């Protein structure tokens, strides 16, 4: 099991590195489990969240809440999400309580480069997802 704290520290350093393609900020969030907020530069409105569980690293982006979806089109949107899931690289759509999310799960043994790649892809996927699903939103 990777220590999420040291992973986050390493990530934070990478995020500050201007040589890197994408810059981002990593901040711990207080709570019962280790969660880190990742703010990608110029996409601060769509933060990513990094957390861990048994043998996994989870990267989650919150898209919108159920009530933001036009009630009549929810069924269709759900179907679109299911249909798009496999094609979307590294991320999947999911529902956490009343929040639609895209998330990626990595093995706890994943390298820092894997996690960096995951973050970049996830943030792009999240923005594109909202963009293409915007028609279903109120």
């Amino acid at each position, binding site marked *: 099991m990777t220590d999420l704290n040291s992973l986050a520290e390493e990530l934070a350093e990478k995020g500050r590195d201007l040589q890197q393609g994408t810059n981002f900020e990593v901040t711990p*969030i207080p709570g019962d489990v280790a969660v880190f907020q990742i703010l990608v530069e110029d996409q601060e409105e769509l933060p990513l969240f990094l957390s861990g569980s048994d043998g996994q690293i989870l990267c989650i982006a919150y898209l919108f809440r159920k009530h933001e979806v036009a009630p009549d089109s929810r069924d269709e949107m759900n179907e679109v999400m299911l249909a798009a899931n496999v094609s979307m690289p590294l991320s999947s759509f999911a529902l956490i309580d009343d929040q639609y999310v895209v998330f990626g799960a990595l093995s706890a043994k994943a390298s820092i480069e894997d996690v960096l790649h995951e973050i970049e892809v996830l943030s792009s996927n999240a923005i594109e997802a909202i963009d293409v699903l915007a028609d279903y939103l109120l």
Partner: protein
Amino acid sequence: MSILRKIVTAIRGGAREVGEAIVDQNSVRIFEQEIKDAQNQLDKAKMDLTEVMAKEMQASRKIEGLQEDIVKHEGYASQALDKQDEALALEVAQKIADLQGELEIQKKAQQSFSAHAERLKAMIKKTTKAVTDLERELVMVKTTESVQKATTAITNNYASGSSRLLTAKESLDRIKERQTHLEDRLAAGEVLEGEFSGQDLDQKLKDAGIVEDDNKAKDILEKLKAEKAN
């Protein structure tokens, strides 16, 4: 009930917070206990199997030995008969009968050990699968629990904050706006750079005498000097 089924049941039952509906305080502990029990069972079965297989091999070796012994004594009996020693032949025959009796017992024992080993192997296979399944379920419970806790932390610290007042659409618009800005800035930068490099070219042309220099002060001064001298 499997975790996946619990999730389906919770949704069908209209639960708002699925995580809460399927993860209770005890589920992790219960799964961990079940895994421990199954693992113990597995360890014991593996030890039993080693023992039973050793006994089976022992029986096999005894069977081989007995069979050799029987062949050997059949040879003795035949030799005794050749020597017309009926009494000795009978004694040997009795020995052969004893050996055959022992052989039957060993063969039955071997069969029983072999059957026992097969049962243990099947059980090990089944228990190993059960442990894998339980471990998978445990990961699901733990992940659900940790996502639930993470969500609570995020909701408390971020979702209630000012940024979450934005809807997804508004967030997207802001990001897009900023990206357009960035692109505009880049485009403007390119124009500027173009102008700079244009200036550069002008200078080169002037230096090369292809384009006339705007600044003719030097020429004018030379001209004035020449006029004065005259």
